[in-house]
């Protein structure tokens, strides 16, 4: 970034990551131990299990201005708590399909499964998702006032 005004325009992209402690958080650790280079946009929140994820946490992040939200947990069948990610999978998929209906870009939210040994895959996931978010640009957030809005007539 060359000047302050540029810096303001191109504000730093921030991606919220919800990582389960047992697999993906460990996978991110593995990627670090292997020194796999990754974009720096991700801010990781450590949670015990993707089953701990309430889809509203993702909504909250997006409304607050997160440019992206990445959820990652153990592969299906490998959940430390046996089934947490099975619940999470359904809940997150419903949300992912729902977001665009409300006018959110669903590409800003991604969920994936990465095990503690998959450092390389974690690197790919982070790199790819960061690229996606950079392509989308910063999250403009909600308009606080609405001047004109499209009308919808259903009947």
């Amino acid at each position: 970034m060359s000047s302050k005004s540029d810096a303001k325009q191109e504000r730093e992209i921030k991606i919220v990551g919800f990582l389960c402690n047992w697999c993906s958080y460990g996978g991110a650790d593995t990627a670090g131990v292997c020194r796999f280079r990754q974009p720096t946009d991700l801010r990781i929140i450590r949670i015990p299990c993707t089953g701990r994820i309430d889809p509203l946490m993702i909504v909250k992040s997006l409304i607050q201005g997160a440019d992206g939200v990445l959820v990652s947990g153990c592969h299906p069948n490998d959940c430390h708590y046996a089934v947490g990610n099975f619940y999470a999978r359904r809940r997150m998929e419903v949300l992912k399909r729902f977001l665009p209906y409300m006018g959110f870009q669903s590409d800003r939210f991604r969920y994936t499964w990465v095990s503690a040994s998959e450092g390389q895959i974690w690197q790919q996931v982070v790199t790819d998702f960061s690229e996606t978010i950079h392509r989308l640009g910063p999250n403009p957030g909600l308009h606080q006032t609405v001047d004109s809005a499209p009308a919808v007539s259903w009947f």
Partner: protein
Amino acid sequence: MDDKTNALREHVKGIFSNLELVLGWEPGYDPLHTRPFYVRTESDIDRLTANCLSFQNLTRYLAKSMNAVDPAADGRKIGVCVKGCDSRSLVALIQEKFVSRDRVYVIGLPCRGTLDARRIRALVPDPARIRSVNAEGDELVVETDRGISRFALDRAIARKCLQCRYPNPVIHDVLIGDPVTPRLKIDAENPSVAAVEALSLEDRLLFWENQLDRCIRCFACRNACPLCVCQNHCIMETRMPKWITQYRNMNEKFMFHMIHALHLAGRCTECGECERVCPVGIPVALIKEKINAIIYEMLDYESGIDPEAVPPLLTFSPKETGI
């Protein structure tokens, strides 16, 4: 006095000795309204009414206001009048064990649609002059102090009724009146949802912002919802945990409605009460209808149909792939 009301009263008279009370409707404070009514004594029965103004979903009163769970109460059941949409809420409450099926006597009323007071006002600008409204076949007959006018019924009934797929109660112990042909097939696309989806992503955001901007967080939608079982323990009213603040801005309004919608994911039965009671006219139900469509497409599940079914977000299938 119409036939349906008569038939209902006759039926209730016949069985009332076996019931603790009956939840029904009585005429309201003006010709455009009815109100919920608890029939507690034999003499109350003649106040019962059932017509196109019986819009309230009475199952909302079942879950919390009385002991509808314990079948052993005193052996007598609680009677409840349900339209098609209401019956689904009742099933959902049974699914979630807020109501015991053994404890309720379900009086089913096939329904051709309930009136939307807002739309009537568009037809008759001065509602104070209205003396009575009546559905006659496909027509709505409005009597004002200036005379009688007739409108197509479809111009006056609620949005949810125009896309009704379950006009006949899915469970009932007795059915008052003949079954009605559904307006839409069960797997039909929701036309209102499609109308929103026809907008571009940016326009959809603007549309919702414009709608939700009006929200004053009065909680009418929540209070009317039969499946908002938390009621006065609602997450929206506590600051511990602080999911929502008292700030009056778009973020909080959006969050409020996202919480309401996602808490009903896989549970909402599309009774439309939230939308009907909204004092500022936000199409609140429209948000939930989309989630229902997603869940129907993804998991082939509809809430409030099978009393034995487990709501889909409270269970899982390890075999699911592709999601």
